[in-house]
């Protein structure tokens, strides 16, 4: 086992990877294992499993694992005519391992339809709906690779709606929880099909890692057992053991530099002491997420690239897709104690493709889950018309163990006016322009959300809930940040090609949520990681043929 590499900033390494999350971690492991010299630059700190607390204040108020809006403000507006107001809008993992450290670990593959919805269903007025330049079959081997390399638990063939797969899951499903039993009970009554949730959490020990101990702190927390298959627990140690990869934490990239030939030469970044540093490389890979990636391209404008780097199409930052979905709550007769173990144990995909007779675009999936820890439950678990403080409120808190939430995750249509841009006035603590979000969901997306929330309520009733309520569906804070550097064959209609190479800068590659052409049903991590494994193959091949 080699020691992690240490490079000088003056060394011209083979690849700089900006971001160490779901995609960046995979690319670091794959490229360094393939013999390339890699520097990974991560904005956030490096935490170890021993640092992970069961402390809501730490995770949600102090933003221990995520971007802190006091230092990095966002601004938000619903349309281009408004002046954007400062408010938290994009929320992402900001540490080595990125969002893969704190995600709930739902690991749904996209289905065949997600890649070809434009040709199957035709255009939708007001939406920028396109087919992908690749199909499900192109990505299938890489979904399988991701599941086996990272460690994913599930039951192949359990959902009648699943796309074809070449191999079963490497690990059996996690144990069923009370919420799972209730979801099965409701689904059975309604003629739907509940199946064990595919999760990037180890149900048993796997490749030297510990299986899940059911502590209950998955969503928004890091796993102190290393049982969650984050890139921090899986890919990054392997990358470092190759002896060719250096992961530099506290490295906040502000610009990609280019030369007179229009090629990237390296990046400028702030180190922990906020000193400016430069790292040189033969090629740059952006894996910084669907908000930070377009922001960095827009910040890298120059005489040669006046609209921002890789932006001759004008599409960098456009087609932003949020994590849209609904949430409903049910109180049951007996305690579920759903705060124990992983958050989801049963999923329903009967509405992955909504029957055309309903005239609702796309579709979605449902899951019964634990979604709110004690503080979160008290702060935001009740419907707005229920008491929010005082005697009655306190009494309702006692329903905590008897609660189940049903969530839906659905298609979000890309809209040209939903964007990430640079705020013209607001700056972050490093003096860089704040992320400005302009966002309003397409009316068809809101119809899909409404349709899915009706199914949530049906499921809760069928499962025997004594009391139910709907949570509001307006979302102006998103953790899934998709579509902002879209993949495509035509350089006027996309930012990167099917090899993840930017159309404009031959040695600049982009792979993260921004690459997605459609949202699928808004469980994007499996697809982001399958794309990363595939991109690693494509990029390695090009590099070995000296074609970068």
């Amino acid at each position: 086992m080699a020691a992690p590499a240490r490079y000088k900033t003056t060394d011209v390494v083979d690849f700089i990877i900006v971001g160490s999350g779901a995609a960046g971690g995979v690319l670091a492991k794959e490229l360094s294992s393939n013999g390339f010299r890699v520097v990974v630059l991560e904005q956030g700190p490096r935490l170890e499993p021993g640092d992970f607390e069961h402390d809501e204040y730490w995770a949600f108020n102090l933003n221990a694992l995520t971007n802190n809006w006091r230092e990095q403000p966002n601004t938000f507006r619903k349309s281009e005519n408004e002046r954007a107001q400062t408010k938290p809008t994009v929320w992402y993992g900001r540490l080595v391992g990125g969002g893969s450290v704190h995600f709930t670990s739902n690991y749904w593959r996209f289905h065949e339809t997600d890649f070809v919805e434009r040709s199957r269903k035709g255009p939708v007025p007001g939406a920028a709906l396109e087919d992908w330049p690749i199909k499900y079959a192109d990505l299938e081997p890489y979904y399988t690779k991701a599941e086996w390399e990272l460690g994913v638990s599930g039951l192949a063939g359990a959902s009648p709606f699943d796309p074809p797969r070449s191999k079963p899951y490497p690990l059996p499903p996690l144990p069923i929880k009370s919420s799972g039993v209730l979801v099965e009970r409701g689904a059975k009554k309604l003629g739907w099909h509940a199946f064990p949730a595919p999760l990037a959490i180890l149900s048993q020990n796997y490749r030297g890692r510990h299986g899940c101990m059911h502590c209950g702190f998955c969503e928004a927390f890091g796993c102190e057992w290393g049982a969650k298959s984050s890139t921090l627990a899986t890919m990054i140690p392997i990358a470092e053991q190759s002896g060719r990869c250096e992961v530099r934490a506290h490295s906040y990239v502000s610009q990609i530099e280019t030369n007179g030939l229009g090629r990237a030469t390296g990046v400028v970044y702030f180190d922990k002491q906020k000193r400016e540093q430069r790292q040189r490389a033969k090629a740059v890979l952006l894996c910084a997420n669907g908000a930070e990636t377009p922001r960095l391209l827009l910040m890298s404008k120059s005489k040669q690239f006046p609209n921002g780097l890789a932006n001759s199409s004008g599409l960098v930052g456009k087609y932003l897709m949020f994590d849209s979905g609904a949430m409903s709550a049910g109180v049951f007769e007996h305690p579920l104690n759903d705060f124990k173990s992983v958050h989801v144990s049963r999923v329903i995909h009967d509405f992955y493709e909504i029957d055309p007779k309903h005239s609702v675009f796309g579709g979605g999936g449902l899951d019964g889950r634990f979604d709110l820890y004690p503080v979160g439950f008290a702060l935001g678990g009740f419907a707005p018309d229920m008491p929010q403080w005082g005697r009655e409120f306190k009494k309702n808190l006692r329903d905590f163990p008897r609660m189940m939430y049903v969530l839906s995750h659905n298609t979000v249509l890309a809209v040209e006016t939903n964007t990430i841009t640079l705020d013209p006035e607001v700056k972050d603590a490093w003096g860089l322009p704040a992320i400005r979000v302009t966002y309003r969901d397409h009316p068809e997306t809101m119809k899909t959300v409404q349709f899915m929330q009706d199914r949530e309520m049906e499921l809760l009733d069928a499962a025997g809930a004594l009391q139910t309520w709907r949570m509001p569906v307006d979302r102006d804070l998103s953790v899934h940040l998709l579509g902002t550097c879209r993949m495509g064959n035509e350089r006027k209609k996309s930012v990167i090609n099917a090899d993840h190479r930017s159309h404009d800068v031959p040695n600049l590659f982009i792979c993260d949520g921004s690459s997605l052409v459609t949202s699928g049903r808004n469980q994007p991590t499996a697809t982001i990681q399958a794309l990363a494994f595939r991109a690693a193959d494509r990029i390695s091949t090009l590099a070995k043929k000296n074609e970068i």
Partner: protein
Amino acid sequence: MNDNSRRAFVSRLLTGAGAAFAWSALPHFAAALEHAAAQVKTGERKFACFTSEEAMQMEAVCEQIIPSDDGPGAREAGAIYFIDYALTQTEPHLQPLFRDGLKQLAAASAPQTFSELTSERQFAVLKSLESTEFFRRAREYTILGFLGNPRRQGNRDELGWKYIGFENPGMFSPPFGYYDAELLSGKKSGE
């Protein structure tokens, strides 16, 4: 098992790949816990941010948000200690918001102080302040002080967690709840 002994237990258990991960946070964490335990023991009402008068008014607000009627509330759980801790240790930038808020509260309660009002009057005063940033934060931080991790000096003796039926031993094993236990025991598998 509290968080501290859980950690010791967890670190003993980890072998092989797991042992390679450093438990770097442990000494710092243990010290924080000892400090909190010592403070609870002495029973002294000492505040780092609030004056004792401010603490009295703030605690009366906490008590309206999570009253002590059908079981321990914000007062018994020491929510005020969490707020005092947060305003000095982790988020001093919130001090002006709370200070200004307490002034608004005093103005709305005059000529008496908020804590001197009857419970009904206190409720009415807070209702009138419900849309203010101060009330939003007061509610949030009272809830954090009632239901947050006790390492932050609120939720004493896990009173809030016990009240709502939450536990944090650091690991569980199935069955987790009534319905999966029922399924496992084979009594009933759906209807």
